[in-house]
């Protein structure tokens, strides 16, 4: 049978018999601690080091996503040309077309969007009087055409 071990009969040590710290450790420790607590001449972004790792990751993600969003909203829209053209008065457009030798063909008209070709209302449903007035305004040769 084992001899029971009694702690109060064992020689008590001031601390476990572990290897002593390196030479001059306790002489250097105060200076090392003081170095850590003194405000250093940190760069302007030194506050980042004070943030926790998850917070830094979240901040980086926000910056990347924000960059994408900003580039998306700030990129020129494809309708700028159409908007600029719409601002030109109709008379000037007609003058330009008449001045040049260009003629609008049926093929050109076919490329116009329906909204432009038909006006704002795709189903005008004119009254008989309105229809007659429009037809009277047209040149005779186009009526037969």
């Amino acid at each position, binding site marked *: 049978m084992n001899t029971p071990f009694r702690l109060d009969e064992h020689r008590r040590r001031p601390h476990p018999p572990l290897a002593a*710290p*390196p030479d001059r450790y306790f002489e250097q420790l105060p200076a090392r*601690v003081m170095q850590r607590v003194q405000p250093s001449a940190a760069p302007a972004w030194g506050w980042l080091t004070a943030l926790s790792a998850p917070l830094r990751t979240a901040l980086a993600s926000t910056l990347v996503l924000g960059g994408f969003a900003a580039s998306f909203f700030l990129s020129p829209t494809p309708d700028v040309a159409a908007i600029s053209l719409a601002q030109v008065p109709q008379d000037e457009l007609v003058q330009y077309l008449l001045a040049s030798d260009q003629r609008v063909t049926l093929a050109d008209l076919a490329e116009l969007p329906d909204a432009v070709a038909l006006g704002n209302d795709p189903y005008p449903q004119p009254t008989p009087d309105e229809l007659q007035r429009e037809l009277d305004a047209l040149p005779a040769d186009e009526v037969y055409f």
Partner: protein
Amino acid sequence: MEDQEILSKFRDPASRNVAFNQLVRKYQSKVYWHVRKMVVDHDDADDLVQDTFVKVWNHLESFRQDASLYTWIYRIATNECLSFLQSKRRRFFLPLNDVGAELAQKLEADEQLAGDEVELKLQKAILRLPDKQRLVFNLRYYDEMPYEQMAEVTGTSVGALKASYHHAVKKVEQYVTEHSLNN
């Protein structure tokens, strides 16, 4: 330099650094061995001791003197140790006993223990205790700290500490007896 003098000098910005330097010199050895007993490894202990004193610096101005400066610093060091061991366990998904086994391995490599089988068994038995019970054991057995001071350090009642120490001693004695060479 007395604690009260250190505290009053620390409150004066002109003498703050000198006072804190004195504080570190006064308590560094006690704090180091308190931490070292918990984490065994010197490098880990070094990091934790520095972290402890950095926290002391950051909060010393708001120290209300409900407890003595000595027990307050011990409490910070204790919390640092317990957090460190907990995070180590979580990081490596280790159960309670495996951290003890890892610390025991470091202990076996320690030259100071070479040849002293009973002491080695005793140290292994202590490392097998749960962290908080080991803390109580260390404070009482090695530091011979009164239970009232231990209560301030650990935030536990005196009765609970006495019971914890009693159980720890029983466990240690049982382990050393069972693993003794005198089979």
